[in-house]
């Protein structure tokens, strides 16, 4: 591999509250300049992975118990979330998490803290407004009054202000109308192309995610099950059936039958 990987997740395990294991032996990489999609059902541990990468896990009493995560070659274990943001790893959290009591512009100002120590000149929000003209119109208004789509734009806009080399995007399509999803994913693809920012994109909406991604991983209950280029994924029978929603040949056995073979087990024990 010639291109160095911007992000390497190496065989990590994550445990919440010291008892509940969420991720088991998970590895993935994000090459420079690419969008990597991570797909999987609810509760599979996708958001947990992102929080492990941005070190926000500790806030929720979670911890990486083994394995390593490297960003730009450096182990992130000892780096606080804000330090990571200042080094160019920006996490756009699930549910947008904008500051509702602050104005749009103050939200962007908050993100300038990520530029601390980089000696950047006075930050300008022009770039954000050029991608999202709607935010410019509403820059003096409270962010809480924005629509869901505009809030998602603001969340991504904050990431742009921080000038990161890697953006972690957690479910940007969540709760948005299909048209808005289209619009946002189109811009995501544009940002990637124009700015050369790498992205790790977590989505349930596999279709749109694979439409913008270069490669993807699919995880189930804390483990990766399939990985590869987008091309490979969209031709995979299981992916088509379970994640893209194309009906197809049935599974080996139906859950309706579990009663019978499980029952047997019960008798035996």
């Amino acid at each position, binding site marked *: 591999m010639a291109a160095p990987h911007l992000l390497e997740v190496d065989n990590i395990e994550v445990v919440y509250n010291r008892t509940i294991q969420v991720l088991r032996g998970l590895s993935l990489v994000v090459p420079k300049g690419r969008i990597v999609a991570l797909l999987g059902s609810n509760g599979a541990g996708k958001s947990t992975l992102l929080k492990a990468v941005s070190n926000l896990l500790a806030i929720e*009493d979670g911890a990486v118990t083994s394995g390593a995560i490297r960003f730009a070659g450096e182990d992130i274990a000892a780096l606080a*979330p804000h330090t990571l943001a200042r080094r160019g790893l*920006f996490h756009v959290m699930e549910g947008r998490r904008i*500051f509702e009591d602050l104005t749009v512009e103050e939200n962007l*100002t*908050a993100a300038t*803290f990520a530029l601390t120590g980089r000696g950047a000149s006075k930050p300008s929000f022009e770039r954000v407004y050029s991608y999202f003209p709607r935010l410019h119109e509403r820059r003096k208004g409270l962010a809480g009054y924005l629509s869901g789509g505009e809030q998602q734009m603001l969340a991504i806009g904050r990431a742009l202000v921080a000038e990161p080399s890697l953006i972690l995007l957690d479910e940007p399509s969540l709760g948005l109308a299909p048209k808005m999803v289209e619009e946002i994913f189109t811009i995501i693809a544009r940002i990637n192309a124009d700015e050369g920012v790498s992205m790790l994109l977590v989505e349930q909406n596999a279709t749109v995610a694979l439409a913008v991604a270069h490669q993807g991983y699919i995880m189930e209950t804390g483990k990766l099950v399939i990985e590869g280029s987008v091309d490979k994924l969209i031709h995979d029978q299981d992916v088509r059936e379970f994640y893209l929603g194309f009906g197809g040949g049935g599974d080996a056995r139906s859950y309706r039958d579990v009663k019978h073979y499980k029952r047997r087990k019960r008798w035996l024990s």
Partner: protein
Amino acid sequence: MTDWLFLTEVFLAGLGSGALYAVTGVAFVLIYKATRVVNLAIGEILMLGGYAFFGAAAGWHLPAWVALPVAILAGALVGAVVERGLIRPMIGESPISVFMVTIGLGSILAGFVQIVWGADPLRLPEFLPSAPIFIGEAYVAPKVAYGFLAAMVVVTAFVLGLRFSRGGVALKATAADQAAAYSVGIDVPRVFSLSWIVACGVAAGAGVLVGAIGGISPTMGVFGLSVLVVVIVGGLDSMAGALVGGLFIGVVEAFAGTFLGGEYRFLVTFSILILILMIRPYGLFGTHEIERL
């Protein structure tokens, strides 16, 4: 009772003590906003400020303009130590546990002050001009007037600073959503530390003013109880609420003390508190929902 001059004087005196409530309330709100900690030790930190001033001015014979910064620094130092030593380990615990930690802290500080300076009430060396002040014909005790001015300058600085500075944005962002603040690159632990340091410094400064007017004693922390009423009335997370609540409670106390008698002061303010809790639990200006237990 239509002695307008007298009413005006009472009102002004009420504003004077209300301003001290307001400035202490601001310190309280600052900590609450940043860390969601209800700091019941604010009264004791205020007391500590008064004693630190006494120690510097009467013990080391420093002039007042040196002793005041010493007192503020002492408060700030306590704030820093407390935040690192007691509050940081409690992150994630129930708000009530943290609140009890601050009660314990208050007790420790009161004991400490007693060991160092004894249990007797003390007077601070005079450092404010004592020439009587008249607004129109109304008399205002000079200390009260200067206390009011100082308190108002601080409160205004806070309200404006919070609204227009980048630091204000960091504070508000941290208050709104810690994880999100972290994720956009805000050094959340530093915001915590700074808010405690600044707030405790301010409280200590307020302690000097309060001590100048009423003397200092190890039981001075009771002042914190009135401040608690003020911030609940104004809204725990609202600087403007602390300002309005402080002045309001100050004036109400003044009138209650004058027309009902000093023993009614607490009764009246706490009755107002109960009323507010029943009809507007987040206070007049509070924006956030009630914390869940």
